[in-house]
């Protein structure tokens, strides 16, 4: 009976087997490689943090959110405005995180009443609304001209390392949050909501509070990431901060790794960034078509992602069959 339990339960703790070595390897990149590779590693950490965040609402809770860029952009603008107002950089990142979380709580209260496609469209509309707001509110955001931030002192190599480790820390915190969530009461409640929202309500899950909590958790680190990348790039503008492409890429990464798995989104982000850098960057004209191909490939061949339950079940069934033949 014990073995039959483990066949359908999600693999628990297995993610750490590859996540810890991967994290250590990433942490060593800026020490042993030049600034270009440090920059790529920073992107991996950034997208891993974003994909892990998306996974809370899109994977655990089953609400297909396209709000990622709204949170990233808000974090970027909040961080930039506060930093330009004289707040120390790291403090501005923390404040931007708090602002984003608050925004997500209010927004979630409103749009989490929608489900499925309606929620997806509602959440993508938020990104566009935020972009328009940032473009038009010139007195605060600089409008279409964007905002400049102070360039981090100490030269590009040093700055590259600082921002890499900042993103690295955000990724680790997001991963720890995912591991905690998976084992927590809230996480269990979110899985109930994902499976059957009415039944969740009926067994005593406070569905609205759970969904809003999930939305806030999915926004938190997007805000931090946005603020850090604003300081890193030292210039933000509405179309960069509230990027529709980013809002699409992040869910694809999470799905590639395995939506609803605890650490799969990290793997998805890694693979995606590598593919983007090695393949897409060589065919710039076709890069977005390739994104489309990846999505189609995912739907047809990897609906559960690289770490999805289906893949694991299939592989373990195959191993079990081989063992049976040998015995």
């Amino acid at each position, binding site marked *: *009976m014990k073995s039959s*339990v483990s066949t*359908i339960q999600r693999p628990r703790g297995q993610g750490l087997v590859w996540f810890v070595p991967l994290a250590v390897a990433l942490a060593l990149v800026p020490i042993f490689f030049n600034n270009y590779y440090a920059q790529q590693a920073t992107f991996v950490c950034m997208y891993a943090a974003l994909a892990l965040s998306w996974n809370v609402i899109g994977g655990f809770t089953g609400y297909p959110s396209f709000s990622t860029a709204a949170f990233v952009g808000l974090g970027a603008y909040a961080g930039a405005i506060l930093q330009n107002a004289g707040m120390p950089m790291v403090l501005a990142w923390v404040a931007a995180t708090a602002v984003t979380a608050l925004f997500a709580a209010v927004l979630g209260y409103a749009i989490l009443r929608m489900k499925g496609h309606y929620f997806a469209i509602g959440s993508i509309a938020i990104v566009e609304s935020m972009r328009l707001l940032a473009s038009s509110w010139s007195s605060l955001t600089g409008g279409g001209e964007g905002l400049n931030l102070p360039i981090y002192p100490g030269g590009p190599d040093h700055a590259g390392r600082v921002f890499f480790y900042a993103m690295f820390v955000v990724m680790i915190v997001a991963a720890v949050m995912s591991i905690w969530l998976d084992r927590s009461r809230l996480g*269990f409640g979110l899985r109930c909501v994902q499976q059957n929202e009415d039944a969740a309500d*009926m*067994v*005593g899950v*406070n569905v609205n509070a759970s969904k809003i909590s999930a939305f806030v958790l999915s926004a938190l680190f997007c805000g931090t990431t946005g603020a850090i990348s604003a300081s890193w790039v030292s210039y933000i503008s509405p179309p960069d901060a509230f990027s529709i492409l980013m809002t699409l890429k992040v869910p694809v990464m999470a799905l590639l790794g395995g939506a609803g798995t605890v650490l799969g989104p990290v793997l998805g982000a890694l693979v995606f960034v590598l593919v983007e850098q090695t393949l897409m960057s060589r065919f710039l004209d076709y890069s977005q078509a390739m994104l489309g191909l990846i999505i189609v490939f995912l739907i047809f061949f990897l609906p559960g992602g690289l770490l999805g339950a289906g893949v694991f079940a299939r592989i373990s069934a195959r191993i079990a069959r081989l063992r049976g033949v040998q015995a």
Partner: protein
Amino acid sequence: MSALLRVDGVSRYFGGVAAVSKVSFELTPGEIVGLIGPNGAGKTTLVNLVTGVLRPSAGRVWFEGADVTAQRPWQASRRGLARTFQIVQPFPQMTVLENVAAGALFGGGAASRAEAEDIAMEFLEFVGLTPLAGRSAMSLTLPSRKRLELAKSLAMRPKVLLLDEVNAGLNSAEIGAAIELIRQIAARGVTIMLIEHLMKVVFSLCDRLLVLHHGELIAQGDPRSVAADPAVVKAYLGSKYAAQEQQASAAPAGTAQAPGEQHE
């Protein structure tokens, strides 16, 4: 005896249609009460009004002396007012154990997921699903799903359990087992209200019957006198059934469907 659940003049309108109209009744602790009536009479709507799925258009619902008219379903289950659905509502991709543990953790107030799983095992044993604990809920047969639904509700440690057609779709052997199970649940001190179309089940289990027709409560009382009530015969049971009922000593009819055989 003070009422555990008191429904006081509750109505619910959908547009101009009164799905439930000025219904009042009480459940006293330890009772098994049957709620019967033709299709579309408003039975499920009434359960939805009592458990917070729907808000009454008028009237009040009292549970353990507190006004719970405005409660949400999750609050109802945490208070000890649990229900099952006519169409079973499992968490399909979770295991049977996890399904029941969800009830224990959220509705039943278990302190941790480990404790919730212990409680869940206890109730899986009770409904006879222990061997299937590790299976996914969607892999179960209908009778097993109904048992799962029961175990899930029981794990919430309810004081009142509202069973919405738990026997629909079961064959007569399975129904016998289900009746036995409901008896055992009642023996644990849970007050039960069941919506049921099978007169065999109603008569063998219920202390009292409520009859709903066009949203109105047309009769209530002990099963025998309710079954003899001309209004109930006209609205639901039919004259053929009443004729059988009058020859109380006659041999029971063969079918299990209402109007069906008499108990004992």
